């Protein structure tokens, strides 16, 4: 009897979920973690030719994806990153390089050099501006999918930072403009120091223990909490039901 109950509940949950097809945006930040980033050959504005893994082996990397003709999020992304790195907590002795790479195949090394100058980063030793001839493989290895719009001559794309440790593994991905605390966690993670992380709520995640409200910044208990209490509640209820039934039968 229990088995039937269980199966029908399962069918109910699954059928109801068929509609809730996984949104690529939800939980996108958690994809590719612990996977190896594509070992793209890089041309750095300093004139060096190195591969992604060689560069990561020198120092773990924060990779920022931009393009030089960008009229949107690219500049704020770099400026915010530069500022956050100055104030990020507990990263004093941590090693890292920032690799700013263009995902627009039309960008040249010269374009990237101009960009570095624009942000006054051309002489910062741990900032590397680069291009690669294997951009499509590189971006697909981190699930980054910019879309070109002919009307605006712009890419529609996310502001993405990817943390890569010195073995070439993706340790963390940050989406959007992030504060110094988040950047600190990113730097820790590429140095293989534990950095707490959790899956973002999405439409396919129905039974969270907590629901986060971005407006108030507060967590409230979610449906998941009920599931934790359920076994105890059901057990005591079953106990009472068994007793009532056996008493009425014996009467």
């Amino acid at each position, binding site marked *: 009897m229990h088995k039937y109950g269980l199966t029908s509940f399962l069918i109910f949950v699954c059928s109801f979920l068929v509609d809730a*097809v996984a949104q690529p945006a939800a939980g996108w930040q958690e994809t590719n973690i612990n996977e190896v980033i594509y070992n793209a050959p890089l041309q750095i504005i300093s004139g060096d030719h190195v591969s992604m893994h060689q560069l990561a082996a020198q120092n773990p990397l924060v990779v920022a994806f931009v393009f030089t003709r960008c009229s949107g999020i690219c500049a704020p992304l770099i400026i915010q990153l530069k500022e956050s790195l100055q104030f990020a907590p507990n990263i004093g002795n941590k090693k890292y390089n920032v690799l700013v790479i263009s995902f627009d195949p039309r960008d040249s090394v010269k374009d990237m050099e101009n960009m570095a100058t624009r942000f006054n980063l051309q002489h910062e030793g741990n900032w590397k501006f680069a291009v690669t001839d294997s951009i499509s493989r590189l971006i697909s290895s981190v699930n980054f999918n910019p879309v070109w719009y002919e009307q605006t001559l712009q890419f529609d794309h996310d502001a993405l930072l990817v943390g890569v440790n010195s073995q070439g593994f993706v340790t963390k991905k940050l989406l959007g403009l992030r504060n110094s605390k988040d950047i600190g966690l990113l730097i820790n993670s590429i140095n293989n120091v534990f950095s707490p992380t959790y899956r973002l709520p999405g439409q396919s995640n129905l039974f969270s223990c907590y629901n986060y409200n971005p407006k108030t910044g507060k967590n409230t208990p979610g449906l998941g909490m009920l599931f934790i209490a359920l076994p105890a509640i059901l057990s005591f209820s079953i106990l009472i039901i068994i007793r009532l039934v056996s008493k009425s039968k014996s009467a």
Partner: protein
Amino acid sequence: MEAKGIKKNTAIWIIAVLVLFVLSIILGIIMRLNQGGAVHLDPGTFYADMTIHGITMIGIWFVAGMAGVNFIMERYVKTSYRANTFALVMTVIGVVMLWVSTLIGDFHAGWTFLYPLPFKIAWSAWATPMFLWALAVLGVGWLVWVLSLMTALLKKYSISQVFAWQHFRNKNPEVETPPFILISMISLLGVLACLIAAVVLLVLLFAEYYSHGAFVNDALLIKNLTYFFGHTIANEMLYLGLAIIYELFPEISGRPKWKTTWYVAIAWNLTLFFVLLAFFHHLYMDFVQPEGLQIVGQLASYLASLPSAGVTVFSVIVAVYRTKIKWSLSNLLFFIGIAGWVIGGVGAVIDATISNNFLLHNTLWVPAHFHSYNAMGNVLFSLGFFHWFSVEYSKRKGPERLSSLKLSFLLLGGIGFLAAFYVAGAESVPRRYSSYPVEFTSAKLLATLGAVFATVYLIAIFLFVSSIFKRCINMVLHRS
């Protein structure tokens, strides 16, 4: 006919448990040898070995406790032979599925199959659903068994009587609740709760698996449910063993039956409630778990274990101190088992204290304490029962030979095996490593020593098991 059937089933349970126990110890020794560097398994094989060792050990000592409790419960109420047989059949099917999924399918996510590991397929793709369905088969069989035993008790005793509430105030109540009934009911209710937690857990995991990612689980919820199930069942199976001891220890020792007093009733009622909350101590390192639940975890760990351990130890000491006791292999095993349970319990309470857990979390201290109250605690409770049962009800009676040799090997092997875990734990050697990095200088040596002592323990178990085994086979084969 029903009572005879239960007796025969009990003998079959004992045979199955003993065979699987010996096989699982051998797997345990292979793991320690690998950690010591004496043999070389690839990590996948090591973890498949660890997974099947862990889940089999938990499963067999749970059913051993249930079979013993079911057998003794027949003294008080009529139990269901059909439910017992159904559980037996489901257990055999479930165990075969588990062993196939790990040893052939190479499933190796650990006995706690912590989310999302089962879905990070690093083995044959069919092994994940087979492992989860195996748990479902076991769960259904055990749920039916537990419910049938609870029903048998509740037909005779009211809720307040079965939990001995009339003993709280009244020294000589009209209806006395035997301690065996009290502790059995408390354990069965706890088992019911953790099996329901397992059902919820499996439904959620199946939903994710069969929806191909359209539904994803909340990792915190799954971890809470996993330990609700895992931690609680590992504790309740000990209490099943203790229920048997409360009934048989005085009887075998030639002493008057133990009675339920107000403090025994209160202590076990506390256990009933708090053991359901103690699992939170497995989540101390989970930063998203609210702080309040972490504190509940620590307090519940104390309140679930200390009172019941206190009254049990007190009862045993009163029973043996300066009194003439008829010592036999069974009550000696019970006695040593209680010592092992208490020592392991102290190790567990140390680890469940938040400030200590920062140091001991996921070190070998954890297997040290749970192996103490299992390998030198609960296993001995059940072996004591198996021995008593096989001698009492078999036609092949005769003097027990080599008793002191068996006990000496058991003590030497058991203590040495556990000491190697404790020392390594205190030195922060991590648990669940297939081989140790050079930085852990003493880890390999301790692992090898652990394997040697575990082999001595295995020899003792062989010596014990062979006579029990023969007597039980005899009972199963002969009509009586």
